[in-house]
């Protein structure tokens, strides 16, 4: 006798998960491309990563294989590391420039 939530989820078709994931990913891309605040951009990246995670889990469930779980764990680990490094960078940028405007930080091209 499976645990009730599984029962419940089982009724939701795979396409819904994928659609949700695609929508989330698209939102992430849009946020990344069009927002100017670095923090928001950073959050958009997290959103994209989690959209992909959702796809992994959905397929993993559907195909009854553990690979998807493992990948999503990897993604989470990478995301955690990235968050640590990224936030440190953002902090340093703010300290030096007193701005979080992403277009102000383009001095690498020079």
């Amino acid at each position, binding site marked *: 006798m499976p645990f009730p939530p599984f029962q419940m989820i089982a009724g939701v078709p795979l396409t819904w998960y994928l659609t949700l994931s695609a929508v989330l990913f698209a939102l992430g891309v849009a946020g*990344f*491309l069009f927002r100017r605040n670095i923090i928001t*951009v950073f959050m958009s990246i997290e959103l994209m990563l989690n959209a992909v995670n959702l796809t992994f889990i959905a397929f993993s469930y559907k195909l009854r294989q553990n690979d998807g779980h493992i990948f999503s764990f990897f993604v989470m680990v990478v995301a955690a590391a990235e968050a640590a490094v990224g936030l440190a960078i953002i902090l340093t940028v703010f300290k030096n420039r007193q701005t979080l405007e*992403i*277009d102000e*930080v383009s001095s690498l*091209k020079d």
Partner: protein
Amino acid sequence: MQLWLIPLLPLAGFALNGLFGRRLSKTAINAIAVGSVLLSFLWVVKTLSALGVFSGGLTGDPYKEHYYTWIQSGTLNIGVDFAIDRLTAVWLMIVTGVGLLIHIYAVGYMAHEGGYYRFFAYLNLFMFFMLVLVLGANFLLLFVGWEGVGLCSYLLIGFYFLEKFATDAGNKAFIVNRIGDFGFSLAVFLIWAHFGSLDFTAVFGKVQGMPVEPNLGWITAISLLLLLGATGKSAQLPLYVWLPDAMAGPTPVSALIHAATMVTAGIYMIARSAPIFLHSASALDIVAIVGIATAFFAATIGLAQTDIKKVFAYSTVSQLGYMFIGLGTGAFSAGVFHVMTHAFFKALLFLGAGSVIHALSGEQDLRKMGGLRKKIPITFWTLMCAGVAIAGVPPFSGFHSKDAILAAAYEHTPWIYWVGVFTAGMTAFYVFRALFLCFFGEYRGDPHAHPHESPPSMWIPLAILAVLSLGGGYIDIPKFLTPMFGEPHEGEPWLMYVSVAFGLGGILLAYLFYVVSPAIPESLARGFSGPYRWIYNKFYVDEFYDATVVEPLVDGSRELLWRVADVRMIDGIVNGAGTTASAVGNLLRRAQSGYIRDYAGWVAGGAILVIAYMGYMGLKGGF
């Protein structure tokens, strides 16, 4: 027998003087330079007597020593081999013997010159290469020596490198010789291609088995290319122009390199390659024609030169022409005989001229000499010995060798004999013209100069060479070389009388013109001012070469090679590569805006493209 010691001793002298000469005293430099050549000469004498050369030995195969394999590639196998046969023996004695005398002379002559150690280092290096040239047992080693003596000649002509005319003369000698060397190297390639070896014994062995080539072919081509090489080194038409200018070097150099030894390398090479030349029907005739043309042409120029060294330079060109006549008419041994006697009397003429120049503190113009007979008697008498030797007065050395050549020429082609005899008359005339202008009459130079006799280190070599010039004709080279070139021909006696008559006539005419009544030559020069100007200006050959070869070459290099090929094409390609890269970079720079969102946009756009492509292929059922 340790043949390698012969060239290596001067090389050691070169290394010592060249490396440490700056810090050595003049005495030490002299000891090294002269000592190394003396030891080399003694070693030659010892080796030759051990081989029995002086007692009728070494008549068969050459004595050969193999040291190591120099080049081994496929079937090409070239060893560093030295060999001695009778031909080499003659040259070894001339090179080391006359070379030794000239080294001793140079000690006195160069005493007050700068660059003392440099001079002797080069001179020793020259001895090394010249000895390699004559000892080498294959064409490549001969070529090494050939190029080496050319290098030393260049270095020593340009010895006074602060003077532009000296460096120009050095360049001229080197570049003109390049033309000849080009012919020689092609000949070496052809010999390799045709005979599969460069070793003298192997090549000549093969050529002996071949029939005489009636028309143009391999053997004739090889011979003519070798001849081209010889015309460069031995200053024959049309490449003789460098030798008169080479007199810009110090006088001992003119005597050693540009009279006695190096310029005879071409004769050595042809005599050495005699089997090849003898297997071509036409090559030897061409050698003879080149020889007679050069002998005559250079003698006419010699008639009107006013620089004492230039007179003797043209005389050298002319006498080398005689040697070519000897070779070309098949009398190889007569040609070699003349090489030896010429080495004696021409070295003496140059050294004597050097002594005169030394006495007058650098004056070379015959018009500013005169009456020196009493002032420098030793120089006068030794130069007179050289004069009678070159004029062919019996029984002195030049008479014997010239007579042998002319007799062979008459047997071969009578007209060559007649032109040769006439040239002999001119030779006697211009040599004695120079001597009379120098030693007789009134002194016409700077009245404040005090002509002085040269030191013993200079006049002792002169005296030895004078003895050799007078008596050298009794060293019977043709008989000595019989095992190599066959029995010498005896000419008819009247040939000899005619040539002696022409020689004496030349001397008498010179005496009449320049001692008895000096007005005659002046009125002649006025009366025939046209031809006189041509001769005085050396037939404008230099100007002709300048206009036809040098200037088109320089202009072509400047306009075509520099302004078009180099500036436009080479620089264009190099600069084009640079500007193209920078333009492409400029274009790509726009992609790198520095805005994170731009990069993200590129990533997103790329992802969309990939997805679209994959979707499209998927729909088509592709991949």
